[in-house]
């Protein structure tokens, strides 16, 4: 019985439900006399720090130290890509940026201390909005361009063309566990960092940088995260650095834990985008050319904004063949938090734009949206605008057709129309949208992973790998792969916390790549051990090594595989191997083959493969208020051969609801002075149970093995988020239904809050009225 492919619960599920699964901040009680940190926050979005007077604060009871730039023994710099992020800034770059950190015996005392630090600022003009940034030509990058065909000529020649623009809001990660870290000196005088980080190696590197020590002097552990979603890929680093600098300055353990308000005010979010385009199409709705300009709001520093913009460029075609396409992306610099990775990493923004365009094209040619989408699908043999072959393009049509049949799309479309004719004030909308998402880090060198598998003399096993667990079920999948790799039950394997002293130089657990990369590394480590053990077993059993089979904790000749008494137990074999001086541990290493991308030419094969899916969503909208409900969702998604179906289905439905939140209720509002007005759960609204549709049907695409990936599987973390675009398109369909006999375009703001939907109805009615008056 193999473990891979079994629908098992999350490996920590029993710990989760009993409260026994620990997170970084839960470890605090293990440290003697830890200090607690609280930041001194700038009240300006942009200002020069003239002076910091810590005297009054340090005189308060229980305040131990106010950390400033002078306490940094190494480099005062924590930027992950470009070195443009001073840990203690002399110029404030966003509202509530921390200019100093107070260490005290309690959080209470640290907060009081932070209030007592006197900072003199010289306020400077701030750029808050994207419009202001563009007007001021304030950029973090040069224009990034990908072009194919002859877009200008094709646009001029197209029988129909129109222009449009779309603004997309950002998104707060709202991982339930806020940023948390504990730094302490270990017995060798080196620093040990517990951090809720997706990228322990980079956290280690940043801590070493601020301390001015070699990497070997810093160990970082990420036990497990209470959610991350990209928000702990780079943004955990500064808090680990503060804790490390504090521990260095005081010789005591230092804990930094942001509360929710701090976390929302200080950490980066999904990038808001602004798209402007001109599109040309034929009479039937075939897109002939697209000229697309994308701006993202990067905030104050570069962070990961460049690859995020690239991913938007790579995904502005979604599933559609656009023969002449020019897309130019540029990252704007504003005085806001440094926007960062968030599930989808620019892909969702690119995809929403093309789906928005397709609906407009469909309305322009007066055809149903689903027909025009299908008309434009990539076919086998097509290449993307960056020149990569769309391998398995046929899956788009296969998923599309199958999902429509399963969800009874045609009949329901007719029902929705009938409902809308009969109801003046409540309109329904039904829409189907596809997803094609490229898998691999677009920075090719990140596509590597390592594992360290240890077998002990009693046959029990520890698995270390470079990936971190944030709820996505990576460790569950790694356990399944390791158990099968050594032919033992799951219970024989222990998955170890992710530490930089077990596997060095790891990549972030990001880009949906965690199980592809680490899974292959774990499998390779297990294979080495198994091959060595097969030799030991063969000698003991008197058979050829190739005839030895490892399964269910026993090692037997393959012809006795059903016999529970045959052969040796895995534990006996491990004991023998030890006596015979056969090594019982191995490292595994994997790098994704044959991927590259040339930024100069905008050509290459940045992705190892594509993950596909489609979703159908039905909504109902209240015409009086714009409030709406999600009535039903159907999804068919391609995860290859699922390693862990329960985990994969969880990723798909969870991703959908998270995408739904981004596109509907989650609205980030910045005040004119750069203050984030929505900085708590009471003002920033994630989906609740009430947003979960009563009918929510998820199916995995059958017969979808991906031969180039471990166990035939496919990455699943990010792609499903974009299935939620179907909800936005369904809302647009419902909005259009308020404007009988029809409108040529539905302009719906993002996020589509009830207010946004209300005004969209208002505009649609105005357009419809205008049209009938003109006729």
């Amino acid at each position: 019985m193999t473990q891979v492919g079994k629908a098992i619960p999350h490996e920590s599920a029993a710990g989760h439900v009993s409260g026994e699964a620990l997170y970084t901040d839960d470890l605090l009680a293990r440290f003697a006399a830890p200090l607690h940190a609280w930041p001194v926050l700038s009240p300006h979005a942009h200002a020069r720090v003239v002076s910091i007077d810590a005297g009054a604060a340090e005189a308060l009871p229980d305040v131990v130290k106010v950390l400033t730039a002078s306490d940094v023994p190494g480099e005062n710099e924590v930027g992950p890509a470009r070195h443009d992020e001073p840990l203690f800034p002399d110029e404030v770059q966003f509202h509530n940026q921390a200019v100093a950190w107070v260490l005290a015996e309690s959080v209470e005392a640290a907060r009081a201390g932070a209030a007592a630090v006197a900072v003199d600022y010289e306020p400077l003009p701030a750029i808050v909005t994207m419009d202001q940034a563009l007007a001021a030509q304030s950029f973090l990058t040069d224009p990034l361009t990908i072009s194919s065909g002859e877009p200008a000529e094709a646009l001029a020649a197209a029988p129909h063309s129109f222009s449009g623009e779309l603004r997309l809001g950002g998104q707060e990660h709202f991982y339930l566990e806020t940023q948390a870290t504990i730094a302490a000196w270990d017995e060798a005088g080196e620093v040990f960092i517990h951090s809720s980080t997706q990228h322990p190696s980079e956290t280690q590197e940043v801590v070493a940088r601020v301390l001015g020590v070699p990497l070997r002097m810093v160990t970082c552990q990420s036990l497990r995260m209470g959610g991350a979603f990209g928000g702990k890929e780079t943004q955990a680093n500064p808090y680990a650095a503060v804790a490390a600098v504090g521990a260095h300055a005081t010789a005591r353990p230092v804990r930094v834990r942001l509360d929710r308000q701090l976390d929302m005010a200080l950490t980066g979010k999904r990038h808001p985008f602004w798209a402007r385009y001109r599109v040309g199409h034929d009479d039937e709705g075939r897109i002939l050319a697209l000229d697309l300009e994308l701006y993202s709001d990067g905030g104050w520093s570069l962070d990961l904004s460049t690859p995020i913009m690239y991913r938007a460029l790579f995904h502005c075609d979604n599933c559609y063949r656009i023969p002449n396409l020019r897309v130019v992306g540029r990252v704007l610099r504003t005085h806001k938090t440094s926007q960062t990775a968030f599930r989808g990493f620019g892909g969702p923004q690119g995809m929403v734009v093309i789906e928005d365009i397709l609906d407009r094209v469909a309305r322009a040619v007066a055809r149903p949206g689903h027909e025009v989408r299908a008309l434009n699908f990539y076919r086998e043999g097509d290449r993307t605008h960056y020149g990569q072959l769309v391998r398995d393009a046929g899956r788009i049509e296969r998923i599309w057709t199958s999902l429509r049949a399963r969800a009874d799309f045609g009949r329901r479309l007719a029902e929705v129309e009938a409902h809308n004719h009969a109801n003046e004030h409540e309109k329904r909308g039904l829409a189907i949208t596809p997803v094609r998402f490229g898998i691999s880090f677009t920075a090719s060198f990140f596509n590597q992973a390592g594992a360290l598998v240890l077998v002990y003399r009693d046959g029990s096993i520890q698995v270390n790998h470079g990936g971190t667990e944030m709820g996505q079920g990576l460790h569950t999948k790694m356990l399944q792969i390791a158990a099968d790799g050594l032919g033992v039950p799951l219970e024989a394997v222990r998955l170890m916390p992710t530490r930089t002293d077990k596997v060095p130089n790891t990549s972030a657990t990001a880009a949906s790549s965690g199980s592809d990369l680490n899974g292959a590394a774990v499998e390779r480590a297990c294979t080495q051990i198994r091959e060595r053990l097969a030799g030991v077993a063969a000698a003991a059993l008197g058979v050829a090594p190739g005839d030895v089979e490892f399964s269910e904790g026993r090692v037997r000749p393959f012809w006795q595989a059903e016999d529970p008494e045959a052969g040796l137990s895995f534990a006996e074999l491990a004991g023998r191997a030890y006596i015979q001086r056969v090594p019982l541990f191995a490292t595994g290493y994997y790098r994704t083959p044959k991927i590259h991308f040339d930024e100069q030419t905008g050509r290459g094969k940045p992705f190892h493969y594509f993950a596909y899916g489609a979703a159908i969503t039905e909504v109902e909208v209240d015409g009086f208020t714009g409030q709406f409900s999600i009535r039903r969702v159907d999804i068919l998604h391609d995860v290859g051969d699922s390693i862990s179906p329960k985990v994969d289905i969880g990723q798909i439905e969870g991703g959908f609801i998270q995408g739904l939140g981004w596109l509907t209720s989650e609205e980030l509002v910045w005040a004119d002075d750069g203050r984030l007005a929505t900085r708590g759960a009471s003002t920033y609204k994630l989906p609740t149970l009430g947003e979960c549709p009563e009918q929510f049907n998820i199916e995995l695409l059958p017969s979808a093995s991906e031969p180039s990936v471990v166990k035939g599987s496919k990455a699943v973390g990010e792609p499903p988020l974009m299935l939620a675009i179907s909800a936005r398109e369904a809302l647009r369909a419902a909005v259009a239904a308020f404007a009988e006999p029809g409108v040529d375009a539905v302009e719906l703001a993002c996020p589509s809050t009830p207010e946004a939907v209300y005004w969209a109805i208002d505009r649609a009615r105005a357009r419809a009225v205008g049209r009938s008056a003109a006729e």
Partner: protein
Amino acid sequence: MADLIVNGSALSIDEAGVDPHTTVLDFLRDRGLVGTKEGCAEGECGACAVALVREGPGGRTTYVPVNSCLTLLGSVLGGELITVEGVRPSAEALHPVQAAMVEAGGSQCGYCTPGFVVSMFAEYYRHERPAWDPEAIAGNLCRCTGYRPIRDAMRSLGAPAGDDRFLARLEQPAPRLGGLTQLRTRTEGPRRLLRPASLAELLDQLAATPEAKIIAGGTDVVVEVNQRHARWPVLISLEAVAELRRVELGDEQVEIGACVSLSDVEHRLDHALPLLDELFPLFSSRLIRNRATLGGNLVNASPIGDSPPALLALDAELELVSRAGSRVVALAEFFTGYRKTVLAPGEIVATIRVPRRAPTHAHFYKVSKRVLDDISTVAAAFALELDDGGTITKARLAYGGVAATPARARAAEDALLGRPWTRETVAAVEPLLASAFTPMTDHRGSADYRRAMTARLFEKFFHETAAGRRLGPQPPPVQHRVHSQGVRSS
């Protein structure tokens, strides 16, 4: 020393060595019970849920799940609660609620999971639970799963077994919270928390410390404690004042004690005020309603409180008491400005009185970004009385979120009198509604949208009375919570 019984064991607390602003959440985590998580510190996410063991309606012991981040230690000292650590029966076994969550795939990152388990645990033992109340977990946020598996886990549960020890606990009385002389810090300039045991004691304490901050449910005050780091020299908890915790159903009116939790109001009203049945499911979440009080919601005087529009539409009156005596004020006269009321120093709201006579037509509306557990962009409650000829004889159009206080659209109300309840009448008063208020733009909505909603909600009200049904998305169907209509679960 005072005790708090946690998971069946008494934890001792030195009353002279604890800051009265200490929340139950911080207390538990300090004592090593780190299964209870902080997710938001403002009662929105439920990761910190614990189950209080309380005397419920009918005197029966009940598990009451609450947000421990908004519950002050001083409000529950002397009482009993269960945390996620106490739910697990043994190292070898999981509780049925926990097992169902594991089986359904109800946890991913696991950080919200303890809160869901506690909410579900309390629902599992709810007396005469006829069906699963979806609201039981609507105050818990999950960022990973999308909720479907958690909902499935809840629905998969049966009734507790007869020998279930948590069921047995409910057969024993809950601890009665008495007064607490004081909880205070040891440092200089001490902060104190007082918990009077009677109304008379409360009024004396208020007269002696007019600067004291009053804590009823704490669901708003403790947000200020956590987020703005608000600290007061004296806090007075109303937790043990029995006189403020009564509900009387008279023939003419109902009297609701200012400190009855909204959940208890909901139970004890027994559908006596149908308009409030529409309000409750839209009023925050179950975890909040288990602590929040009507008195708190009114005294808070927020323009976006949910209960004032409904109570204004029903012509509610308030009984205010102080050492000087009592007086009755119409709710319509209670609010004097942004977060200001007619309350004098030393005076409190004791009782909310609501006439029982049902209007001919009445509905409550709430426009917000999310259907459940959100704060109003605009709230409205409308109540009309029509005579036999269909002429409007009384009109109440009350709003929240459109002015500095909850307010009635009096010009429109007057204009409706004597008219028939028709589309034309609605159209005639719409200009009056559109100009009735000058709302603001903020992160919840624009002034234009709020102005539009002022008229559009009234239009919606008309169409609903004409159609005889509610229009548009509704909160999940609220099940009957009336004890007599339920079936015993075990």
